[in-house]
């Protein structure tokens, strides 16, 4: 019924003042936003409450204990919380940079060259999407143990570099963003393949790389299973595993609840800040070849 646009109907696309405000869609979306913001706003308010206030004052009444909660948290086990925060930044930042580099050059090679085995390699790499993480995490731990590398930073960093979905995105993006004629022109000028990649392809791929970096950064930041299995020393924990151990230690001691709540609140800040400042790069579809602002 809507195969093609009729000529001359474009003018109707402009919202006319006589049309009603979409009350139903707006209301549904506002309800959805209230649902998603509710626990986040609760944890922010709860983190300001002192031990006594947490259980006595009404839910959304701000308390007076924020500074003492922060002081308690940073004093906990000689400030191990800071270490968790730094570790997480290291795992997520380092892992995402390496992952973006590997994905970009792989995606570029798969998109812009034709060579025997291209489809096989692509399918092998992409097939990893379907492999459940558990099938990998436990044997990865055993293999790292044999190599004497379990419970090290490497054991968390290395397995998270290869990310099938990022390679897939990088390939799609490279296909759309790099005109073959540009590479051909470079070749006629006598540029080598590596130089072409560095000087011609890389600048065109940068917006897609930012998106890949962000997705991978969040995936590693949020990962729990792999560091939970790999690490035993709490000085190497990321935030997720650290907060879990905090809860496991404090679940039956309500006096520790303030610590856990404050830690949870602080753990949200870096990612939400990254998320809000990088709005325009959060795209699930890179085939457009450009990032819209």
């Amino acid at each position, binding site marked *: 019924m809507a195969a093609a646009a009729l000529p001359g109907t474009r003018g109707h696309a402009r919202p006319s003042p006589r049309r009603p405000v979409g009350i139903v869609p707006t209301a549904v979306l506002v309800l959805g936003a209230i649902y*998603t913001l509710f626990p986040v706003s609760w944890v922010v308010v709860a983190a300001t409450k002192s031990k006594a206030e947490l259980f006595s004052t009404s839910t959304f009444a701000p308390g007076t204990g924020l500074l003492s909660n922060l002081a308690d948290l940073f004093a906990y086990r000689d400030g191990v919380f800071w270490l968790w925060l730094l570790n997480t930044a290291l795992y997520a930042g380092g892992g995402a940079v390496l992952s973006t580099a590997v994905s970009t050059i792989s995606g570029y090679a798969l998109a812009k060259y034709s060579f025997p085995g291209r489809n096989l390699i692509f399918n092998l790499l992409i097939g990893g999407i379907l492999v459940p993480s558990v099938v990998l995490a436990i044997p*990865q731990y055993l293999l790292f143990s044999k190599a004497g590398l379990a419970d090290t930073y490497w054991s968390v960093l290395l397995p998270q570099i290869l990310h099938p979905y990022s390679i897939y995105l990088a390939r799609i993006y490279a296909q759309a963003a790099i005109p073959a004629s540009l590479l051909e022109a470079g070749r006629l000028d006598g540029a080598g393949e590596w130089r072409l990649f560095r000087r011609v392809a890389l600048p065109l791929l940068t917006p897609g790389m930012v998106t890949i970096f962000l997705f991978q950064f969040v995936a590693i930041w949020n990962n729990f299973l792999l560091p939970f299995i790999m690490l035993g020393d709490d000085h190497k924990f990321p935030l997720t595993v650290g907060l879990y151990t905090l809860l496991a230690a404090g679940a039956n001691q309500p006096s520790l609840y303030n610590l856990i709540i404050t830690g949870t609140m602080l753990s949200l800040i870096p990612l939400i800040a990254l998320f809000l400042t990088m709005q325009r790069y959060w795209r699930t579809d890179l085939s457009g070849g450009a990032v819209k602002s």
Partner: protein
Amino acid sequence: MTSRNKSARAHRAGAVPYLFLAPAMALFTLFMALPIGYTVYLSLRRTKVSGLGLGKGARKEIFAGLANYAAAVGDGELWAGWLRVLAYGALVLVLMLGLALVFALMLDAAHVRLARLTRISIFLPYAVPGVAATLMWGFLYLPSLSPFGDHPFLSAGLVTFSMANIAVWGGTGFNMLVLYTNLRAVPREYYEAARIDGASELGIALRIKIPILVPSIILTTVFSVIATVQVFTEPTTLRPLTNTISSTWSPLMKVYRDAFVTGDLYSAAATSMVIAGISLVLSFGFLRIVKNHAFGGG
């Protein structure tokens, strides 16, 4: 030059593409192929204890055939775990993808207000780690802290719903964004023509937008099924707050317990192969059913 046009799209350059792909292939071999192979190997082995099992050489690793698989398939606790995850997964899939679809359609509807603000808000939980989300909701479920009154959210009867809520909260935004991105790519003229034909907004959503979204809905469903089958973080994090979640609540938790608490790597390996097999069967089975119903038909 015309004869070269065909190869211009994908250039042939000898060893170069292989060099460019070498890092990815090295990582694939070390951190994917090798661990998978090792899991298969372990799943076919067992420990043989001779004598009292004391002293050197009393414990030997021997070939076990499919015995570990038979044990995994015959394990009642594992099946109970599958049933729990099935109930949980059905709730999560229906609610999460249903809400994601509704929100995506509402964002794309005509005359919607506050679209940007609500879109960012609903996507926000994507930036919240599963552990943090579980901690927040876990405290909100505790009767001593809950603003929802004195309901036993973590009792045996409600814990599945409470856990599903955490996953729905965390996953709706991302799926909404996938579907919404897809909708934005549709030329607006499609809808204008339908409006001129007298179609209502609801009619446009049902008859034009949802059919356009079918491939994306299938894709998000498959990824959600794979994630749900492997549920681990939420029940593990919620466990310290309640005694209604056992250490083998989900199949993956049982694998973890077998491997690291009980120390039986061989049955853990077999069980994780079974989990992998079931998630593959579920996702491919789903794709097949959908293909036959939606695209095949004749």
